[in-house]
């Protein structure tokens, strides 16, 4: 490597723009930071030698150079930003409303949004954020973050560690804030330095040359926050593995006890009660409001969680031990082991069971000849009645619909609109009579039935939708977010300010200052420090045009 030796004696790495020690511009490298013909020096990375600006030959150099460019980084951000906007024009597929004609994206988008919806769907914008190219964009931002940070952090760190209080005059006079004062005696300088100390500047002195510096740690802010972002991106990758993250959804009926999916049969849940509370319109606080619709203020499932003690014994009846009694509410999930249970859905008044009675078809009093009850989630195939009747459940449609070609069918497995085909065998008879029963339907298949089956009673219950998730990546996200916040505050809420006070050969005093932001603040610092001395105020050499 071609090291560059400066006239001050410091040896700089190849590609250095400003000498790390004395700041003297390295003649042949001024084009790198665009300093040629400029009145002021570009102080962005203190003129340190960045790999991306120094080596440009091999393929790796070129890839490195590409990703280390902030311009490329900003383009990646802008592309992701624009893509994100497109993703919000129409709802993403997971947000297709319940009342849509079809929840199938292939139908929904065209049906609701016409030609634009169709194009949207065909371009795959309906699952924009999980599409490969969007993920690649995010990944490229990640690569850019890493390379940008490495390319700048190391040389900047070197340059700031190697800096000396004595600076080359060319360096000082090309700072944005600069002044020369004559007739300054040592007492003035002492006072100046003391004042700067009072403003919490750290003073380094060498042969009468002074460097006053504060807030250098804020220069590391960007690199710290980029580390935070990288941790978040890594956490997002981890989250796509089943070990780190899994989620499931289950419906639990009131009174039902069932295994919790995704827990390897280790945990069971029992739904004791589901509660839906809507706003009580009598509350006087809300009298003035025109409550057009009831506002739901509480969704709650009272549950008991059980642990199966012998989950690994195949075929054995589980021995359940209650471990948690909890009221899961929206905004108040239940936690046990590594699982969290969220209240996420409900269905009111699902049919629980239906009771029927048998009577003679032409009995006007409909005197009961026997009763039976069908448990709609767990129906039996034959009901033997005390009176000797036998009822065979020939067909059961939990969610009955009539298909287009006239056949009965069940739309879902949930007993929302139960219908049955039953065969009734009178006592001591092998000849059955077929009836079709449903809500508001009682059809006699032959029209010659001697006995009729009538609905006597219906029992309802609520069903609660519970989401189960096990997410071990959360600590990583929290760590990443915390580091990001620390870094961004470190970089944004503090400034790196430096004031150089050098004696020129002719005895006049050179004062120059640099800050990475908030020039107003550093000017105030200097104004305060030179008060009562002969040092003249640093002139701002780069005011925006008036």
């Amino acid at each position: 490597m071609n090291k560059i030796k400066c006239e001050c004696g410091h040896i700089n790495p190849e590609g250095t723009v400003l000498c790390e020690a004395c700041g003297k511009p390295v003649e042949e490298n001024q084009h790198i930071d665009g300093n040629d013909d400029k009145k002021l020096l570009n102080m962005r990375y203190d003129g340190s030698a960045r790999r991306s600006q120094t080596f440009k030959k091999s393929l790796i150099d070129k890839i490195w150079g590409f990703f280390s460019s902030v311009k490329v980084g900003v383009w990646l951000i802008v592309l992701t930003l624009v893509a994100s906007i497109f993703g919000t024009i129409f709802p993403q597929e997971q947000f297709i409303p319940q009342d849509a004609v079809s929840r199938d994206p292939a139908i929904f988008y065209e049906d609701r949004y016409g030609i634009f919806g169709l194009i949207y769907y065909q371009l795959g914008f309906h699952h924009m954020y999980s599409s490969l190219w969007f993920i690649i964009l995010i990944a490229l931002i990640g690569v850019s973050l890493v390379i940008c940070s490495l390319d700048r952090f190391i040389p900047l760190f070197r340059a700031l560690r190697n800096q000396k209080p004595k600076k080359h005059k060319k360096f000082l006079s090309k700072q944005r804030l600069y002044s020369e004062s004559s007739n300054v005696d040592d007492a003035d300088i002492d006072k100046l330095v003391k004042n700067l100390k009072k403003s919490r500047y750290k003073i380094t002195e060498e042969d009468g040359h002074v460097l006053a510096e504060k807030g250098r740690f804020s220069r590391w802010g960007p690199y710290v926050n980029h580390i935070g972002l990288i941790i978040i991106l890594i956490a997002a990758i981890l989250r796509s593995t089943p070990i780190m993250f899994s989620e499931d959804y289950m419906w639990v009926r009131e009174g039902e006890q069932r295994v919790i999916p995704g827990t390897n049969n280790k945990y069971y849940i029992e739904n004791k009660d589901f509660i839906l509370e809507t706003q009580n319109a009598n509350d006087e606080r809300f009298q003035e409001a025109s409550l057009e619709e009831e506002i739901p203020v509480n969704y709650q499932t009272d549950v008991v969680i059980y642990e199966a003690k012998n989950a690994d014994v195949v075929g054995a009846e589980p021995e359940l031990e209650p471990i948690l009694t909890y009221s899961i509410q929206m905004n108040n999930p239940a936690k046990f082991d590594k699982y969290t249970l969220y209240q996420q859905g409900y269905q009111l008044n699902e049919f629980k069971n239906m009771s029927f009675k048998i009577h003679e078809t032409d009995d006007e009093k409909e005197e009961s000849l026997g009763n039976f009850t069908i448990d709609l989630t767990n129906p039996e195939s034959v009901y033997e009645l005390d009176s000797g009747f036998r009822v065979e459940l020939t067909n059961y449609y939990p969610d009955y619909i009539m298909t287009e070609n006239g056949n009965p069918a069940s739309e879902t497995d949930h007993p929302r609109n139960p219908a049955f085909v039953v065969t009734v065998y009178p006592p001591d008879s092998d000849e059955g009579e077929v009836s079709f029963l449903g809500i508001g339907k009682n059809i006699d298949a032959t029209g010659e039935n001697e006995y009729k089956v009538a609905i006597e009673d219906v029992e309802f219950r609520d069903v609660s939708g519970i989401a189960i998730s096990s997410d071990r990546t959360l600590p990583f996200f929290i760590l990443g977010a915390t580091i990001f916040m620390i870094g961004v505050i470190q970089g944004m809420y503090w400034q790196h300010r430096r004031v150089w006070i050098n004696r020129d050969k002719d005895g006049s005093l050179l004062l120059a200052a640099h800050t990475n932001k908030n020039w107003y603040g550093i000017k105030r610092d200097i104004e305060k420090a030179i008060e009562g001395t002969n040092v003249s105020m640093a002139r701002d050499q780069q005011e925006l045009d008036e």
Partner: protein
Amino acid sequence: MDLYSISSNALLTAFILYLLATFFFGGAIRQNKSERNKQTKTGTIGLVITIIGFVSQLVYFITRWVITGHAPVSNLFEFTTFLGMSMIFAFIIIYIYYKNAFLGVFALPLATIIIAYASMFSTDVVPLQASLQNYWLSIHVTTVALGQGILFISFVAGLMYLIRQIDQTKLSWRNVMLELVIYCIFLFIGFIAVTTIFNVLSYEATFEVERDGQLVIAEYHLPPIAAPKDSTLLSENVMKSWFEAPAWMHGDEAGRKLNTVIWSFFGGSLIYGLALLISRRRIGERLQPLLKGVKPDMLDEIMYRSVAIGFPVFTLGGLIFAAIWAQIAWGRFWGWDPKEVWALITWFFYAAFLHLRLSRGWHGEKSGWLAVIGFAIIMFNLIVVNLVLASLHSYA
């Protein structure tokens, strides 16, 4: 006086005081050049009035909290009012640091417009729905609003920079775009004016709308230019609508919202037109001499610093706190809901702003445009995402 009227009177008082303070800042910038950027008497009076107004708004906030039993940031009225309050708060902080009276002349009226805009939505006290019942409501929403309030100052400084610096001697793309930004502000004023006028007149027009075989009532408080789709007018003696809302606009409210937008354009354009007539030149051109006395460097610095201060606050409230609460309430910390996506877009945008500024030297005018666009994104997320796009966050 009951608590509810104390609350609304306190808000009204704050509103009037902010306008009053604007005049004092207006007086402060007319002082001679040597006093500029120093604490002047008139400027200090302006500041004191602003602070009294802020305290009054704080009284509104606290009393409303007592009345409703939850942090009053749960619907469009409450949130937008609080946003206006954060803007004032950010202004007070920045003013104390920079003592720039010019900023007051622009920031205060703009924040006041936001507060007036908020009052156009229903101010009824309604119960808090289950999804919002958590102490994170106050933490998440107030932090977001505070971040946006600080970013608002960068918008104001950016806008002032553009008005100050863009050449108005001949028509150009840049001054036309600037005029467009100013025109958009007039649309807000138009919306507020039209809504207020017809509110005072208690205007009402009722439609019967057929939705999926059911008859729904749609109530208009502005004369119906655009009627809801498939509707019949029930009210008598009201204006006949000019057309029906197109079919691709969905939701029961689509017709009414479209109608409101049309009225805002009418009202806004009318007021803008009057302003043009009176000033006899572009509004940007008219305002330019007003800013002669302020250093562009100072505006540039305020613009950048408020992004530097506001960006971390916004990240904390709009992304991190938001994610924590989403995890508690919905079981997922991120779900690509439009409001979440737009918060991310805002974050990306300001991240790009900072990179362009720090690494590529985008100062001055370029920075000014970015500050204006950034705030436009924030307003988009507030207004369009809430009222137009279907979102889990549509609480109003």
